[in-house]
């Protein structure tokens, strides 16, 4: 069973000057690499194939991507390059499948979302489609999705593009029993090489009419990155926070003070709670900055660990002076990409300053 990731589209909903799947995910990989990592296991796949265009890969080091995917998944990964951009995912797939000498079973995975699922569950079915429940994802833009109705044994009974017929929507992971079935289905749709956008769900529907059964497999973990707005909303949950210690997470202390010196730590509980929540989201990296001298590193690390921070990172011995944050901005990391927050010393209302800056949802 092959894992195929179509990535040959024109990315019209991402006017950022490069294909969306090459955008940098906050965790340091491309959107596409991250999109593949939702599978809990890869044992039932024998290969990852990214179908894209040569023009998309202009200036891109292909091995950086394929080697990383291989190391993360244990699978061989390769690009299949088309000479022209395609008008639809179905066209991308038929162009690739038409090049094969043997009939293969495959899973097609969208490159612009993250879906938690299992290769084993997919391999156990001839045909399957992964879906999510709208109730679990109230922020999803329903009119853009394809919706399914399930029957006995979670078999998909009905499937309609862009009309809400149920609370279950397809999340862009579909298993097909054979390349020939997929191509027969797309031919029945009358797909031409320069036609209107045809969706995978349309082919699924065509195959259902030919008698194929698709099993629905639910996921409860899903991120949609299909438009630039959605992507920015997602990436805005990530941040690197440089936070001062004295006066921000602990009442201010001084090197020369008797009672509140650099060996002491009187926590500002609410502020600490806010930062601990951010760290717990897994999307915020915190660096603690302080004028306290390096001599107190071990003490401070221990204190912060006791407060609940995981392997706290400290930048110590900084001048007691203005701190300036500098960062570049771009379409994918829009202005302002560097933000400074000034809080009143020893106030315990950091959370109110962070609203609208970092998404406090995990």
């Amino acid at each position: 069973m092959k894992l195929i990731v179509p990535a040959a589209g024109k990315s019209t909903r991402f006017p950022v000057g490069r294909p969306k799947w090459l955008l940098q995910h906050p965790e340091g990989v491309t959107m596409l690499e991250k999109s593949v990592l939702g599978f809990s296991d890869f044992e039932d796949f024998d290969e990852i194939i990214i179908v894209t265009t040569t023009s998309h890969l202009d200036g891109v080091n292909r091995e950086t991507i394929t080697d990383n995917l291989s190391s993360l998944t244990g699978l061989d990964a390769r690009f299949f390059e088309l000479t022209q951009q395609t008008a639809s995912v179905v066209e991308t797939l038929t162009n690739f499948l038409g090049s094969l000498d043997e009939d293969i079973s495959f899973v097609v995975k969208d490159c612009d979302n993250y879906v938690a699922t299992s290769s084993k569950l997919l391999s156990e079915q001839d045909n399957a489609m992964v879906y999510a429940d709208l109730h679990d994802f109230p922020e999803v833009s329903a009119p853009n999705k394809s919706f399914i109705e399930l029957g006995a044994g979670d078999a998909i009974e009905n499937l309609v593009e862009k009309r809400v017929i149920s609370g279950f929507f397809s999340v862009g992971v579909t298993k097909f029993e054979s390349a020939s079935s997929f191509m027969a289905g797309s031919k029945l749709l009358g797909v031409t090489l320069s036609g209107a956008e045809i969706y995978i769900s349309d082919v699924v529907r065509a195959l259902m009419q030919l008698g194929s059964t698709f099993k629905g497999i639910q996921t409860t973990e899903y991120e949609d990155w299909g438009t630039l707005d959605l992507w920015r909303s997602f990436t805005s949950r990530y941040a690197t926070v440089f936070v001062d210690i004295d006066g921000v997470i602990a009442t201010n202390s001084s090197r020369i003070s008797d009672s509140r010196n650099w060996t002491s730590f009187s926590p500002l509980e609410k502020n600490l709670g806010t930062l601990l929540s951010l760290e717990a989201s897994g999307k915020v990296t915190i660096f603690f900055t302080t004028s306290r001298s390096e001599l107190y590193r071990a003490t401070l690390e221990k204190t912060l660990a006791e407060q609940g921070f995981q392997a706290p990172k400290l930048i110590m011995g900084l001048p007691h002076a203005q701190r300036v944050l500098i960062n570049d901005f771009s379409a994918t990391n829009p202005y302002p990409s560097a933000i400074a927050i000034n809080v009143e010393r020893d106030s315990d209302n950091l959370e109110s300053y962070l609203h609208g800056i970092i998404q406090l949802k995990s």
Partner: protein
Amino acid sequence: MPFEIMHRDSESQGKFLIDLFSLGQSGCSLSVEYGKTGPRVTKQSHAGIDDKITLRLHKQYLKHVRIQEQGLMDPISVPKVLDAFSGNGYSMSLAPGLPLGLALNTMSRWESLQVALKLGQYFETSLDAASAHETVNGAVTLKLEELSAFYKVARDKQLSIIGSNCANMLRAYFSKTRIGASFNHGDFSFENIMVSRGSRALTALDFLDSPFESLLIDVGRLWLDLNGGWWIEGLNSSPTATLNAREIAVTIETALRKFGIDRRQIDFWACFAGLRVAPYTRNPTRLALLKFSLARTLEVYS
């Protein structure tokens, strides 16, 4: 490769044919030698003398000789047999031109009409000579039962459903239709009909014994390609090929109507051809086109 360029020299044509027929499923190899008397094509089995591939090739040779001597496919030519069957193969002249499936991409409308007329003439000649008394209905029923049994347990579930339904539909229909015995080529497909540029002469290759002798097997096999497209060209034929194929289909349909063979019969014989070919098909594009054709027939007639 363009029709015009291919005809520059027979050497490139020969190489093209070798490449093309290496895609075939006959289990035999082809080689071309260029001598003083012109190119010579040798077809051989590399299996043992008693192996079924060799025996099949020998049967093909016998049919080839019979067609050549009796002009059974006129006005369609066949390559001239140069060396009689010996051991595990035989030699013949190189068939000029391009396979019909390829030629359709660049033929003019007039050229495709010329091709259609020749195909129609072959069909008419064979049907005119058909036996008034001998029928092949029994053999048709037997073959459909075999196919039905195969598709019932086929591993490809989609093919199993489509194939079973098609086989049942054909069994019901053919049980009520008289099918007379008549000569046939046996594998009358786009890759086995060569079209010469200029003269638009047709040459047929690769004859096969069919489960029974009926021209309608040839009609069905050709119709399968005319309507489904040639798999070597991919899932979707070029607009020119589609239009030319349609032109040929209309002409053939008109010719066959004189013999009481209507569109439904032709579609059903194409369906029969698809059911025969699918079990041996490994290429996914080819299999996809077969599934498509079978499904379309079911959609229209069931």
